[in-house]
């Protein structure tokens, strides 16, 4: 993985000192909250319902055991013993003291981490496929150019006061595990007819109150010209994006208002004037970064491991866990292993300091020292030898991380909701907990199969409900919490937005409604058909009928 050189280190350390000064100016009263706000936001510090919240970047979701142990230490020393992994491959601490935030940032800088641009109207932490470097289907490791983007976007002087926040996601494969179609810019690596690698560029996707699957504005962008093209997109947006209404300020509104083709033409014009300049990185610089993402020292192993097969045969719980939590690796004899942060009754994405340390130990001992954070709020050990999978699983079970539910109905994405967030209309986490409890029977979950359920506590859609196979949106109806259900969304390469199925359900009734939907699907599915595919085949009618027939 990428290691800082003296320039990266200098910037992050100077940034800590800078923020220490800004906090001192705030605490002394020189800066009022209005002026301090954009500065703290650019360092990941939010003011939430109860306290300040610190959001730490995990660029493209990659970290090693040393960094994970530091996250654990921060949770223990500066917070209440846990952290929360988010849908944007960040980790959040909900209870830091403002005066201590500079110390936390200094602790992060020691392990080459930061909280720069994890909030505010700037280019946010860049995200990537959490299976990068391990997936069999990728053109190139997307983290190489995600790192290029991270550096270019850090303290960008022109784009630090954009109309609104700006999120970039990169995938190296046709199979989209980074939700590129619902980002401000989504980049998919592919090869052109000459076999050269480059990017397909999607712009103006997003969720929130105006969900849009973004249009492709360029089918093929040569790799070497990535930064000049991104600068062109950002410049058009910075100059022309709306600033009169924060709800209309994302780039998706600009793109939708002029149309994808016209927007592409505006970018093209700007890009023609910019390209060929100093933004083109020399090949040696790209090679320097790429070297950090070279494949780790994989062993030469047989494709099958008899011990692993025997364990799967003997241990039913292990076999069931393998069915959902293991994924094929590009290297023979290895597997990608997902760690669910969705235990029944838990808070989606939360991990205690002890659990973080357990994951760090397992990664160091068995996993070539690599850990990933997925945008589905889980962790990943990307490089595990098949023969070690059973030992890792035992370690995870011992740490309370053995949930065998990746991709199943209880693997819920949820925003913090009304329990933490001052924007929310309704609680999210308790709804997620009640649904997971209702479906606690693992055999039943495995029988139901892949089902992506996503919950947002308000229209800002931090739980990505629009792209859930089942999406749940909390709304306020005359002072009580109600939940609107959407069906048929997807964040993958077949991206689609869910459709509202009908009138909202009360807090008490929403879990029954989900169960009714699931039972309707189970009754109507064809052999091997996923919920999403069944919904696409059948349409909403049978689901509506089942939900509202008696009303």
């Amino acid at each position, binding site marked *: 993985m990428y290691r800082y*050189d003296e*320039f*990266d280190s*200098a*910037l992050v350390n*100077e*940034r800590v*000192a*800078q923020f220490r*000064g*800004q906090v001192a100016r705030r605490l002394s009263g020189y800066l009022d909250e209005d*002026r301090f706000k*954009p*500065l703290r936001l650019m360092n990941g510090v939010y003011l939430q319902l109860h306290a300040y919240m610190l959001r730490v970047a995990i660029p493209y979701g990659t970290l090693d055991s040393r960094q994970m142990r530091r996250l654990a230490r921060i949770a223990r020393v500066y917070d209440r013993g846990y952290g929360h992994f988010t849908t944007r491959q960040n980790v959040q601490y909900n209870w830091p003291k403002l005066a201590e935030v500079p110390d936390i940032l200094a602790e992060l800088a020691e392990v080459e981490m930061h909280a720069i641009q994890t909030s505010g*109207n700037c280019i946010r932490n860049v995200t990537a496929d959490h299976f990068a470097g391990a997936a069999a289907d990728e053109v190139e490791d997307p983290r190489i150019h995600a790192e290029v983007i991270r*550096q*270019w*976007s*850090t*303290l*960008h*002087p*022109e*784009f*630090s*006061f*954009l109309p609104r926040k700006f999120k970039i996601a990169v995938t190296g494969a046709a199979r989209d595990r980074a939700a590129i179609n619902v980002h401000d810019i989504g980049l998919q690596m592919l090869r052109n007819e000459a076999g050269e690698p480059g990017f397909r560029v999607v712009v103006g996707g997003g969720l929130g109150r105006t969900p849009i699957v973004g249009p492709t504005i360029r089918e093929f962008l040569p790799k070497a010209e990535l*930064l000049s093209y991104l600068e062109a997109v950002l*410049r058009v947006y*910075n*100059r022309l994006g709306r*600033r009169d209404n924060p709800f209309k300020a994302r780039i998706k509104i600009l793109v939708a208002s002029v149309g994808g083709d016209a927007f592409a033409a505006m970018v093209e014009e700007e890009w023609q*004037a910019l390209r060929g*300049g*100093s*933004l083109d*990185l*020399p090949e*040696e*610089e790209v090679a*320097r970064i790429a070297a950090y993402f070279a494949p780790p020292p994989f062993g030469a192993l047989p494709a099958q491991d008899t011990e692993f097969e025997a364990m799967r045969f003997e241990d039913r719980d292990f076999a069931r866990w393998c069915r959902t939590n293991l994924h094929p690796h590009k290297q023979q004899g290895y597997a990608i292993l997902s760690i669910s942060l969705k235990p029944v009754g838990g808070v989606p994405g939360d991990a205690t300091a002890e659990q973080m340390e357990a994951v760090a130990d397992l990664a160091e001992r068995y996993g070539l020292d690599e850990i990933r954070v997925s945008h589905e709020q889980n962790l990943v050990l990307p490089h595990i030898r098949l023969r070690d999978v059973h030992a890792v699983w035992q370690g995870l079970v011992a740490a309370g991380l053995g949930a065998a539910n990746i991709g199943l109905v209880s693997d819920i994405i949820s925003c913090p909701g009304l329990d933490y967030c001052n924007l929310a209309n309704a609680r999210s986490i308790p709804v997620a907990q009640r649904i997971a409890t209702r479906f606690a029977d693992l055999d039943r979950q495995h029988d139901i199969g892949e089902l992506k359920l996503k919950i947002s506590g308000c229209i800002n859609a931090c739980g990505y409900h629009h792209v859930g196979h089942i999406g749940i949106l909390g709304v306020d109806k005359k002072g009580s919490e109600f939940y609107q259900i959407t069906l048929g969304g997807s964040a993958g390469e077949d991206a689609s937005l869910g459709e509202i199925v009908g009138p909202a359900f009360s807090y008490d009734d929403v879990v029954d409604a989900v169960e009714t939907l699931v039972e309707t699907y189970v009754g109507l599915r064809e052999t091997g058909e996923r919920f999403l595919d069944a919904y696409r085949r059948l349409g909403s009618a049978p689901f509506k009928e089942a939900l509202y027939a008696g009303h």
Partner: protein
Amino acid sequence: MPVIKDGQLVENDWTFIPDSVPLDGVSRPVVSLARWQGESRALLGRNRWLGLRLPNIADPAVIGAELHCFALIELEFPTFRDGRAYSQARLLRERHGYLGELRAVGGIGRDQYFFLDRCGFDSVRVAGDEAELACALEGWYEAMAEISVPMQPASDRRPPASSLRERRRAAAGAS
């Protein structure tokens, strides 16, 4: 109000003149874009220093061919949150080759100075009370020293990390 220019706090000797007010007797007037577009011949006929205030919705290309007429261009920040003028500044400097004074006016302060400097501004009008003025220059120097190596090229002369890395490679190759 004073301005910070070339690392010094100096009195502002430019005056913005509203469109309806005659320019007689004003030695260094700053005019609106609308006035410039309507009266450019008369304004040039005065044969004196002229400044232009460019609204932040304007495309700098509209004055791209006339930049030699101005000794000063003011770009506006209605609030520090409105970053449109950063793009205008870079376009004026890097695309249109403007060499005169580029001044930031509006709701900006110490924590924007570094970004302004990197985007090609060479002066900033200091807003605020006496206490603000007293520490403005100190704040400017602090801001300039906060980040030693930027991560991307812009309109300033600071070499970005990618250039320094290239130099280091070249030096390693030569030895």
